[in-house]
């Protein structure tokens, strides 16, 4: 066997295309005769549609059709099916493809124009007159459950969509016995995904065959298929959904959107291919976001600095619809107790309807928010007891000898959660060592001599990854000896074409260049779930391993017939099966594939089933738990409140690494996302639900100059829960990052300063917290 590719930092197979402009994203696909769609959207956050005047728009140049919901009656009516039904949510709380009665947030699509060009469609859309009677707006999360609060949805009694709970241990007893109980309220704000590619959809419909084909910039092409097939009453086999190159996803592209349904309906109505590309303003208005959670929490701690229990309540801003059920709050509950060996926990989350765009997971989902509140509570206890922050953690963490550790909480399927492996204290000690925590006092003094405030931040997390049930894969050797991996798992930049190829190449003894990965096309692979929750390495990766190993066995069996040698004596290298010690007795994988492809009138070798291929569905029945600790240093300018992150160190454990280059890329990008959440990204709406930060001039993303050096160190605690020993790595960078930066800012301001309870924090707020400010 050649050098193993698994574990090697091999270059990505995707890149030669991407760096030369040959990536093919939805907007780069132009079916013949395609027409372009533009949407007319609500400018009010809440109202009742009285009338829609499309008369002028219909006469505009290039316009082919203008649709409102009732025009689709022959094909569809009512709201879309619920994506992830939740027993507590009475629904469906989902969109209609075009709103027909009540509109519930700014940016909700109401009418659609088709024209020969996008510009003409947009110009005509401008000329559609909407008459919407305003209704009172629920835009203030903190007061949305008050008895007299305006209702976000008229048909409901109030704005509480559901309340989810998790609890374990003797909560009352733990809090009664605890030496210290501290109470804090936190406001956590996260913005949108801001993938550089916006959403986009193309649909074609063959009226004779009643076949719908779509390309969509989605993390979940199979969910789109399931959802739309069910909505349109089509068999799933008559709907083909593909995700071509996707320019970033980060969560919101995992939902199914009303525009996807509307574009499909327009294709059904016209028989023409229809394309819609979201513009950046629409992305701010109509792509799901994350926004606010308000946490009122109490922590119980012992005199010696152990966290014993956490209890409290969260208000979760759900927005006006729940296309994805209760996924964000459920993820929040599943993120407790983090790395802490708590005796007792009692958390309830109120899912609150507001007249804002719905919230669905953004990189990390609710995990960063829970990491933030838990890490803040740990720091709060440290302050209260006058103990070092790391000491609280050392005393409170789950210890390595407690693995597997049953937390007391439950997974989405109701099964008890147990952490599989990992040494949390080792990760903490590693970052402290790498950032040279011992030398911090000297560095702080040096910064002070330059008039700057230096702070050291610390945060840890545990991350559930590898969400079930499965992603499958087929591994096939072609008649030319190429290994073709087909999977349902979509990619949005995670490098699956490379990592999945590494796994298959190792199993089959071929070079990386001889493997191609075809993904996210329901016409090529029958089933798929979604690229979310850091699950693809575990699910698809394991399936590729299982399928490739089956193909290997089949190849050896076939070769043993052809070469008349025992299977045990055979080896595969560089696409050739040969007898160990007699390498001229050999047959290529290509020949084996040909012999199993069959020849008319000839028998297959050894009665082996045709097709040098195998399909596997690895079912992930228990989550795998990645973990990590981060430490950073910030330098604060007391005059302006400007915060600069000067160092950032990550210790991360995602089990065995398939490709360290790619894992580091995921972590680094994730940390920057978390830094954005801590310092820059703020999606502001006014009290009427109008977005105030809907361009990149107002909504600030981190840029190259904001980027600290991020040093990454890996611990590898292989997961016993899958054949590769891997855990997910897509979100571990983001989860503790905001908590880490905020803790550093607090440290910079000094022990007497304000305890920080929210993010993002602006330079203006920081300046206000520093009493040494010159004026």
């Amino acid at each position, binding site marked *: 066997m050649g050098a193993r590719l698994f574990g090697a930092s091999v270059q990505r197979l995707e890149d030669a295309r991407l760096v030369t402009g040959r990536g093919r994203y939805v*907007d780069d696909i132009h079916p013949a005769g395609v027409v372009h769609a533009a949407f007319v959207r609500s400018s009010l956050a809440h109202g009742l549609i009285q009338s829609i005047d499309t008369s002028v728009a219909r006469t505009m140049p290039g316009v082919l059709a203008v649709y409102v919901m009732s025009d689709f009656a022959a094909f569809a009516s009512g709201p879309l099916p619920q994506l992830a039904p939740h027993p507590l949510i009475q629904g469906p709380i989902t969109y209609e493809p075009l709103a027909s009665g009540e509109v519930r947030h700014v940016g909700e699509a109401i009418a659609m124009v088709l024209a020969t060009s996008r510009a003409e469609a947009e110009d005509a859309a401008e000329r559609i007159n909407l008459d919407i009677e305003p209704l009172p707006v629920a835009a203030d999360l903190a007061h949305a459950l008050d008895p007299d609060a305006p209702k976000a949805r008229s048909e409901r009694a109030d704005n509480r969509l559901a309340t989810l709970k998790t609890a374990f241990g003797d909560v009352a007893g733990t809090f009664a016995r605890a030496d210290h109980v501290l109470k804090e309220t936190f406001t956590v704000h996260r913005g949108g995904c801001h*993938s550089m590619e916006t959403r986009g959809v193309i649909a074609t419909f063959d009226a004779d065959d009643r076949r719908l084909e779509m390309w969509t910039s989605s993390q979940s092409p199979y969910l789109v298929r399931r959802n739309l097939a069910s909505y349109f009453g089509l068999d799933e086999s008559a709907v083909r959904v593909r995700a071509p*190159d996707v320019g970033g996803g980060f969560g919101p592209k995992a939902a199914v959107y009303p525009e996807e349904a509307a574009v499909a309906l327009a294709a059904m109505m016209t028989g023409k291919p229809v394309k819609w590309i979201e513009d950046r303003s629409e992305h701010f208005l109509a792509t799901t976001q994350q926004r606010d959670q308000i946490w009122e929490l109490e922590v119980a701690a012992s005199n010696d600095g152990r966290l014993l229990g956490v209890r409290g309540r969260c208000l979760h801003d759900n927005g006006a619809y729940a296309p994805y059920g209760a996924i964000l709050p459920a993820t929040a509950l599943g993120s407790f107790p983090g790395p802490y060996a708590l005796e007792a926990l009692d958390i309830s989350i109120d899912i609150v309807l507001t007249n804002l765009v719905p919230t669905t997971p953004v990189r990390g989902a609710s995990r960063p928010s829970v990491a933030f509140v838990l890490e803040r509570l740990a720091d709060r206890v440290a302050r209260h007891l006058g103990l070092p922050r790391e000491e609280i953690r050392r005393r409170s963490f789950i210890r390595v000898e407690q693995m597997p550790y049953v937390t007391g909480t439950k997974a989405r399927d109701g099964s008890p959660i147990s952490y599989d492996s990992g040494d949390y204290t080792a990760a903490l000690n590693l970052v402290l060592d790498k950032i040279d925590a011992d030398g911090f006092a000297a560095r702080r003094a040096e910064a002070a001599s330059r008039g700057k405030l230096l702070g050291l931040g610390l945060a840890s997390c545990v991350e559930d990854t590898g969400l079930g049930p499965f992603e499958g894969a087929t591994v096939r050797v072609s008649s030319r000896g190429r290994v073709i991996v087909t999977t349902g798992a979509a990619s949005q*930049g995670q490098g699956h074409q490379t990592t999945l190829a590494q796994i298959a190449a190792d199993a089959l003894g071929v070079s990386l260049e001889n493997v191609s990965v075809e993904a996210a096309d329901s016409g090529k692979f029958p089933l798929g779930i979604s690229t979310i929750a850091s699950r693809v390495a575990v699910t698809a990766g394991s399936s590729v391993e299982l399928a490739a190993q089956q193909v290997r066995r089949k190849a050896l069996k076939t070769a043993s017939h052809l070469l008349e040698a025992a299977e045990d004596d055979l080896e595969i290298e560089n696409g050739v099966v040969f007898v160990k010690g007699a390498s001229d007795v050999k047959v290529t994988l290509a020949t084996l594939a040909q012999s199993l492809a069959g020849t008319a009138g000839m028998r297959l070798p050894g009665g082996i089933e045709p097709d040098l291929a195998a399909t596997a569905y690895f079912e992930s029945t228990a989550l795998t738990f990645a973990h990590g600790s981060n430490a950073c240093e910030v330098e604060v300018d007391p005059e302006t409140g*400007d915060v600069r992150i000067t160092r950032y160190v990550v210790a991360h454990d995602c089990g065995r690494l398939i490709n360290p280059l790619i894992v580091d890329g995921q972590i680094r990008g994730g940390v920057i996302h978390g830094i954005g959440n801590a310092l820059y990204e703020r999606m*502001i709406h006014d009290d009427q639900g109008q977005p105030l930060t809907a361009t990149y001039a107002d909504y600030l993303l981190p840029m190259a100059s904001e980027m600290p050096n991020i040093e990454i160190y890996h611990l590898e605690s292989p997961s016993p829960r899958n054949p590769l020993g891997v855990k997910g790595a897509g979100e571990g960078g983001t989860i503790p990052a905001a908590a880490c930066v905020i803790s550093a800012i607090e440290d910079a301001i000094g022990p007497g300063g304000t305890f920080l309870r929210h993010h993002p924090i602006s330079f203006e707020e920081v300046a206000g917290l520093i009493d040494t400010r010159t004026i």
Partner: protein
Amino acid sequence: MTMRSSLRYLHRGEIRDVSHFGPMTTLLDHLRLERGLKGTKEGCNEGDCGACTVVLGRLVDGHVSYRPVNACIQLLGQIDGEELITIEDLAASDGTLHPVQSAMVDLHGSQCGYCTPGIVMSLFALYQADGPVGRSEVTDQLAGNLCRCTGYRPIVDAALSACAARTENKPGDHVASKSAETAVKLASLRDGADLFVGSQTSFFAAPASIESLATLYHQHPDAILVAGATDVGLWITKQLRQLPKIIHLGRVVGLAEVHETADGLTIGAAATFSDVEAHMTAIDPDLGEVWRRIGSKQVRASGTVGGNIANGSPIGDSPPALIALDATLTLQKGDDTRKMPLEAYFIAYGKQDRKPGEFVRSIHVPRLKPHQVFRAYKISKRFDQDISAVMSAFRLTLEGDFIREARIAFGGMAATPKRAHGAEKALVGASLADEASWAAALAAIRADFTPLSDMRASATYRSDTAAALLEKALIEIAGTSTHATRVTGHRPVSEAAE
């Protein structure tokens, strides 16, 4: 005077002629929709993300000089006479990657790949420019490129590695290897003819002389003047405004020139921020620091000082600096020109002292005299490519330790760029050596402005910051500074006092 009715630009060694295009057609739409070149991406259509970055080459002193621009807000007509290079053009015909592209692959500079074409083009422009490339050059170059996936570090590393390996003849760079040929072809496109594409009711015009400009604008006072289109481009792509008549200033001979005069410099209205960057830095390093943080490389390569003044925005970065320097504006209408102090041009929010048919001709900026010192600070939430919350500029004339005259101007503090007259007066006679003598000015500056609260900053923060920046300027000039801040750039204390 000759007239040409089709646009010409150089692409892949060929001169392309475009005789029919709408005046508002953007370069991005031309590439993607008309030419079918899909490598260049749209990420925001408003100049913020850089996914659409392409590179334009033009002749400067006989050499081809390259600059990155945002194709989404660049009008097609603006590229007349220039060479266009897009992401499809960098690899050699046999597929060998350009050194910048190879470095991006080697160092994992791309994940989803959507920002990648724009980033590669920005780095390509950096690679073409000569001069040492360190980390701050790279982050400056990337100030107009957003990437959500990578965290930038591998991209920065790729840039450093490609540029470090660069030698004079730039092996592996077929754009550089053809530069002599390109120069000849670009020279052949310089015909001195007025460009006019369209009809009397809808046209894109790019006059070649001041006279032609004056005449054309006199005939069509309802036309929109376009210099860099970094503002006007957004009217088209975001506000969906209809602009049937566009007069572009970029081809007017002499209008983009910067003249050094005995007492200062005269900036032609069409000179870009990039064109004047070195001149401003020579007046004072703080100006260089402010300049480097106006928009991004892409925005500075197209955007002009003339446009920054003409648009009358209360948050433009150059007006406060230029007002503090006592700049004079020259306006022209037909054959008539008139001059005014720059500050007089800004009458009220959205109202400037400019008549229909009148255009900004030039700006004269006096250099600092001996005994004059200058400071300017831009305060924004994000270091790069961010609109200022507060922009401040200070010029003090000293007599020993005593302040004889002060000119202080702010942006973001009022409906127009505005002087702090009260603080200026209060400073006269104050001593740098006596902090107590500054108190009146520090109090006065709060009375000089009643700023608004908005998403960038609250009124209180603005007032506090204005006072803090004045104090900071005084401390620095007094030579007692220990606060070297990133926001304002580092200036060694020894340099501070005159």
